């Protein structure tokens, strides 16, 4: 499992990383924890010529209380998110879910920014970003811009982060409701979800679904039903409404649809 030849450029600040991106253009790829990118490179499914390593930029790893929201740096490792008291208190869904990503080795290396920028519909944290209606700060040659969760995941493994930009921060509104739940259906403890669901129940409920489309997706119909106070079982029946789950070796489309309803039902009952 040997990747193709690449050049390695460690960046010591976000500015330097952006300058390097400008210099190398589409030959370059950012590497954070490497836990999504390196497997692709070893299989030679990704062959970047230059790797810009942001792993050493300590300024991008933080969890800070900003009044109405918690700001999480893009380079924050899953393990820190999982263990953060601030997050456990204010966005418990996020802290809890981070604890279900892969295994301890993966959580000690993988970063929240990497997980989001990878844009994998099978990943756990994008569902949380959707459920919590987080905002994402993206920095590029022309400065910083803010993108809402709904506009971030654009296509299969594609996001709003352009080739010359860096995701720097995610802002999670503090959760004021009481009820939240994360449901992950997989076969082995360290696996990705076959289907999963992240729920935050408040005045404006959020439901993010895992592996239910070509991008991380929101269960909008179920959210609306929940908001209008429909019974849990009726809400759960809408889990896959309007969504197009894939068929693959781990589950056919009809099974995924069924699982999504079961999992949302359990999330609602548990929350």
């Amino acid at each position, binding site marked *: *499992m*040997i990747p*193709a*030849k690449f050049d390695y450029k460690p960046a010591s600040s976000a500015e330097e990383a952006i300058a390097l991106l400008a210099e190398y253009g589409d030959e370059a790829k950012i590497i954070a924890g490497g836990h999504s990118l390196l497997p692709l490179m070893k*299989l*030679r499914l990704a062959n970047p010529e230059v790797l810009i390593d942001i792993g050493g930029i300590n300024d991008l790893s933080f969890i800070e209380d900003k009044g109405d929201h918690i700001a999480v740096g893009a380079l924050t490792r899953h393990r820190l998110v999982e263990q953060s008291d601030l997050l456990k208190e204010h966005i418990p869904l996020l802290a809890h879910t981070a604890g279900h990503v892969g295994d301890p080795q993966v959580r000690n290396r993988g970063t929240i920014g990497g997980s989001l920028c990878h844009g994998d519909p099978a990943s756990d944290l994008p569902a949380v970003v959707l459920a919590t209606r987080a905002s994402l700060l993206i920095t590029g040659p022309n400065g910083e811009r803010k993108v809402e969760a709904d506009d971030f995941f654009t296509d299969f493994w594609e996001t709003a982060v352009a080739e010359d930009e860096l995701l720097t921060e995610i802002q999670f509104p503090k959760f004021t409701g009481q009820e939240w739940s994360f449901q992950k*259906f997989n*076969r*082995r*403890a*360290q*696996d*990705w979800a076959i289907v999963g669901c992240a729920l935050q129940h408040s005045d404006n409920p959020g439901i993010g679904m895992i592996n239910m489309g070509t991008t991380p997706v929101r269960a909008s119909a179920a959210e609306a039903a929940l908001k209008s106070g429909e019974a849990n079982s009726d809400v759960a029946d809408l889990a896959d409404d309007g969504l197009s789950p894939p068929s693959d*070796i*781990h*589950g*056919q489309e009809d*099974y995924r649809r*069924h*699982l999504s309803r*079961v999992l949302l039902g359990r999330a609602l009952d548990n929350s």
Partner: protein
Amino acid sequence: MSLVGARVVRKEDPNLISGRGQFVDDVKIAGTAHMVFVRSIEAHAQIKAIDVSAALECEGVIGVWTAENLELAPLPGVPGLERPTLAKEKVRFVGEAIAVVVAENSYAAADGAELVFVEYEPLGVVTSVNEAMADNAPLLYEAIGSNVVMEVPSPDEHQEIIDAAPHSVSMHIVNNRCAPAPMEPLVCLADYGPSGLTLWASFQAPHHLRNTVSSWLGIAQDQCRVITPDVGGGFGAKVNFTPELFIAPTLSKLLGRPIKYTQTRSECMTEMYHGRAQEQDVDIAFDDEGKILALRVMVYQDQGGYADPTGMGLPALTTTMAAGCYMIPNVSVAWKNIVTNTTPVAAYRGAGRPEASYLIERAIDQIAYSLEIDPVEVRRRNYIPTENFPYATHSEIAVYDSGNFAGCMDELLNIMDYDAIRDEQEKNREDPGKPLLGVGFASWLEIAGFGPPGSLEGFGHLGSWESVQVRIQPDGSAIIYTGASPHGQGTVTTFAQIASDYLGIEFDKISVRHGDTATIPQGIGTLGSRAVAVGGEGVKTASVKIVERAKQVAAHLLEANPEDLTVEDGNFSVKGTPAQTVSWAEVAWTSFRPLEIPEEMEPGSLDTTVLQQVPNFSFPSGAYGCVVEIDKETGDTRVRDMYLVDDCGTVISPMLAEGQVHGGVAQGIAQALYEEVKYDENGQPTTGTFVDYLIPAAPELPTFTSGRISTPTPNNTLGAKGIGESGSVGAPPAVINAVVDALRHLDVTHVDMPATPQKIWRILQGGAK
């Protein structure tokens, strides 16, 4: 104190857990070049052209070879079905080696391999035995004219008995294809210099490899040294030959440099032999009491793209053991070996026996369903009684040595509360919040301790004995050299235990060396659950002989009669007068001093070599009970409890025996619920990574509850039967019987492995029965 049966700590572990183990990839020789293969991306195709020009330009690449510019004999294999060492004209499975790139380092070799362009003309593909046997199926071997490469027809004399029987059930069942996936893939390093070849390989049978490679290369065996250092698992897949082991020495000779090959995980999943891959037709006829009247078995063995001698022999093992631990008056068996455009199939932990125990244990449960008799009771009514051993079966190969099948079941019901589980099952069915429970049994039996003279020769081995040489050192410590080269079993520990008991030398003063044809006097290897039953017996034989001679030295020193001496804990003493003693160290030292030993003795003559033979196989058995939970909504199926009663005769090392059972059971649960190698309709593997090929880990496995009974084998004096494969033989039927049991209220009678949640969900939806 006797060490046989004692719970000793593994001698191997301090090295391994402190990072001092040495695997082939750890061996570094200056000047080594690295080889990487270009492998077929087509399952069945003509090779039109191979363009290596870009690869040759690649920095660091030394050369690229194909069947065109490297004359290679085919792999040693099945006459008439030889596998080209590099594909010639045609490829027959995805992963088949087409070209080899050698470079200064493995990075450059991998880059070079990417630049070799192969032009294929795709041919029709068959990925299953059914497709392969269909009329007008594309043929893998045009010259043979059929994809069925071997056929053993059944005499079929029992049709009348089956027709006349009060009851009969027929099943078509699938024994899913599994990938051995050892932690260490295949690695080899060949250094062919002026004084001959040294080949390091991650392999289970160093002498077998030495004998085969030297004759393939046409060099004398004295100039061919094979070293198998620490080996990170093999599960049977490292006894059979693949091209790398022959190409590395060939290129090392050609280039005058050491050549190393380190298989990637992706390659390991498509190129290392797979296991199981059987379909079976089973008919079982029985009377109103559930007593079996006849069993008929037809095995369709998928051989993959090339037939390996062991792969060809798998159905013989399955059909030999098809009647399990039951007295069945009429058994008829038949099989077909069939080639398909998939990875070749050979030995994988259990090799043919898990397929047997699965079919008979599933069939027994069919009787229970038909007659509504408890599955435990059906088993009891059919067990071979203990007084019937030795028991001649329908097969010439198998004369069961000893066993106590009812005793295993009694012990199993001692350690599990069957009635309570049945009560819970009943309650759970009604309670929507509770999972469905299922309980399943397997009274399994396997054939181990390979084997009597003639048994391994058919698979290409030199013999069926095992070599043990014990060399007494002048200070009274001992070194054992054995051909039973382990790959994780703990042989260094068990052999030292046996030797300690029979030599009377302390455990800490006995080392065991293996895995080097330059120092070990011949050998066969570790396979077929034979290390202790054959090699271990050899340790005892050699030790007893040594003590006999050592007593002459001791008697000489003590001025006593050799017959009056005993030896224990490093000392020889006169029976009845324990004060009269001489230490092993003194005896050993003396044995090398011509002036001090009895006149008729030669100096240094304590050392002993044996090629240990055994008169028959041994037949380990056991009774396993499994409890599964099925999520009523998702179909998710988990093993909640696993109760394991093993009877492997005498246990040398309880901890190692348990470890072997736990590992084997984990692999059995894996086969039943998680693992399956799959291909799409074009023969492309769809389970080529550990994301898609699901090997369960500790969180997916229950805590095992173990019991044991011990029925020694008469075929070696230790009474030990072999334990390495038991778990993988017993677990799959226990798990699937439990899964079906959980679904019996829906009239389900069978679920093919692996019982995935999606499959179970479809059944719960009212799909397949």
